[in-house]
């Protein structure tokens, strides 16, 4: 099958089981959300899928191929990319340079020695488009370290989109973004290519319900239930375990 197929994925840190026997599919065009209380194992799950962590047991397949033996960078080159819950940017580089890097690497130009990194008109146009999309244009030549946290979150998302992935995992993209700017995240997600497979991890239920067509609920490393937003909203277990507590 096309896309991601996760079977029996399990991860233990010592005695602590953070992912337990997770089955999960994500195909082209999917818009899924992964929700669950703090510490449920959502970020860990995304790290297992992207190869940042190695699972204790279970398998991850992509387009029918077992990618368990591939490291993070190799999976990214296949088209599986994620944004980080904790902003991980090139702090001392400008916004423009932060966005240029993934494009150069996506096009396998990282080993060019004698051409100016900023010398390709097409790359630069793409960088500008990305910056425009997130209202980052005026900050193009500011170092990322000097940006407000919300703006850094936007760079984080733009940087990952610059990879033009086929599977995109968004780990709390809106966390820390001021409400005046969350529409930029919304717009960006709305404008993603229709055939992109998207998994969004998010605490902001409004955003989840706007974006997701299916929702997976994770509790203590296990999938509690999966369904459409309507089903999840009506699910008594979910209301009790999760929504009842933290959703206002």
């Amino acid at each position, binding site marked *: 099958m096309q896309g991601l197929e996760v079977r029996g994925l399990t991860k233990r840190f010592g005695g602590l089981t953070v992912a337990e026997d997770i089955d999960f599919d994500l195909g082209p065009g999917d818009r899924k959300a992964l929700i669950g209380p703090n510490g449920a194992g959502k970020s860990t799950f995304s790290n297992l899928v992207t190869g940042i962590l190695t699972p204790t047991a279970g398998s991850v397949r992509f387009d029918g191929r077992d990618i368990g033996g591939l490291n993070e960078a190799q999976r*990214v080159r296949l088209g599986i*990319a994620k944004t980080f819950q904790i902003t991980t940017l090139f702090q001392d580089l400008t916004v423009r340079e932060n966005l240029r*890097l993934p494009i150069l690497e996506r096009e396998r130009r990282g080993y060019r*020695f004698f051409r*100016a*990194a900023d010398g390709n008109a097409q790359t630069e146009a793409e960088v500008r488009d990305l910056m425009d999309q997130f209202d980052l244009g005026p900050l193009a030549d500011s170092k990322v370290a000097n940006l407000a946290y919300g703006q850094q979150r936007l760079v984080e998302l733009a940087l*990952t989109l610059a990879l033009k992935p086929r599977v995109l995992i968004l780990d709390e993209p809106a966390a820390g973004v001021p409400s005046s700017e969350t529409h930029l995240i919304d717009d960006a997600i709305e404008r993603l290519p229709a055939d992109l497979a998207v998994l969004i991890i998010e605490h902001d239920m409004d955003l989840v319900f706007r974006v997701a067509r299916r929702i997976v609920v994770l509790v203590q490393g296990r999938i509690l239930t999966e369904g459409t937003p309507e089903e999840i909203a009506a699910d008594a277990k979910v209301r009790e375990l999760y929504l009842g507590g933290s959703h206002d």
Partner: protein
Amino acid sequence: MTPLMKSWAPPLALLALAIALSFLMPFNLAFLTRILIMVVLVLSLDLVLGYAGIATLGQAAMYGAGAYAAGLFAIHVWADPLAGLMIGAVAGSILAFVSGLVLMRTQGLTLIMLTIAVAAICHEIANKARDITGGADGLRGIHMEPVLGMFAFDFVGTTGFWYALAVVVVIFVFVALITRAPFGLSLRGIHESPDRMAAIGVSVYWRRVTAYTVGGAIAGVAGALSAQITQLVSLESFSFTLSAEALIMLILGGTGRLYGAVLGTLIFMFVHHWAAANDPFNWLFVIGAMVLAVVFFLPKGIISASAGLARLIKGARHAGS
């Protein structure tokens, strides 16, 4: 100033400075040449440490490998200077690549210790293999042919100076191009966040091995240059002192900036030259005080003071107009 003039002005100013110094200090050409050789070594360190963020205290390993390789090549095979430089570059890059395969798997303190160890091992091998290297007496009997078949090395060191200056220019342009290219940008990316580089699909390990290898080639050129001009290779080429001094020069000038590497080397060498002449025992205190001052007041190196100065001048001009 137009952007073009802006980018050409500093290197031309440096070149003019070098030439002016050669006329101002005609009896110190050997000293000036020594500075030029160190500039090449420090540029290699800047690429490896300043740009790629590879913590090393063993850049002398590749310098020494280049020096011995070029020296032996000149004695036993061919005494052509440019061919010797190539051999030095190849020797430096091979050593960097082979050791880099292991070293680049480590980081931080472990990496630093291992880079020191590699240089120490090279030192020991050169010491033991005295039949080939001359051991502690050094490798002697290097007699170079004229550069390009035209410029014979002379007693005063005129040819040596101009030859070294030409090599510095070539290496500087080479490193400047690399650091502006996608490869250089990726090295800065690795320096900033190796995690994020992996997350955009880069094999950080191989990128670092490549950077270390290129840096090794340049350090090898510096060593070869030294062997050819001084006609001697000593065990000191592999010494910890050399690695450490190169690092101090880079920190003084400013890491990750090519002009920083040049400026730091100039300042260190001149301070060394004068302070050591006046007080052979305490000159290190002068250097130590300078390093402390730079670390505390100019953490981005003395070169960063020039940016502040430029702003100041600009501000004064604006105020005047």
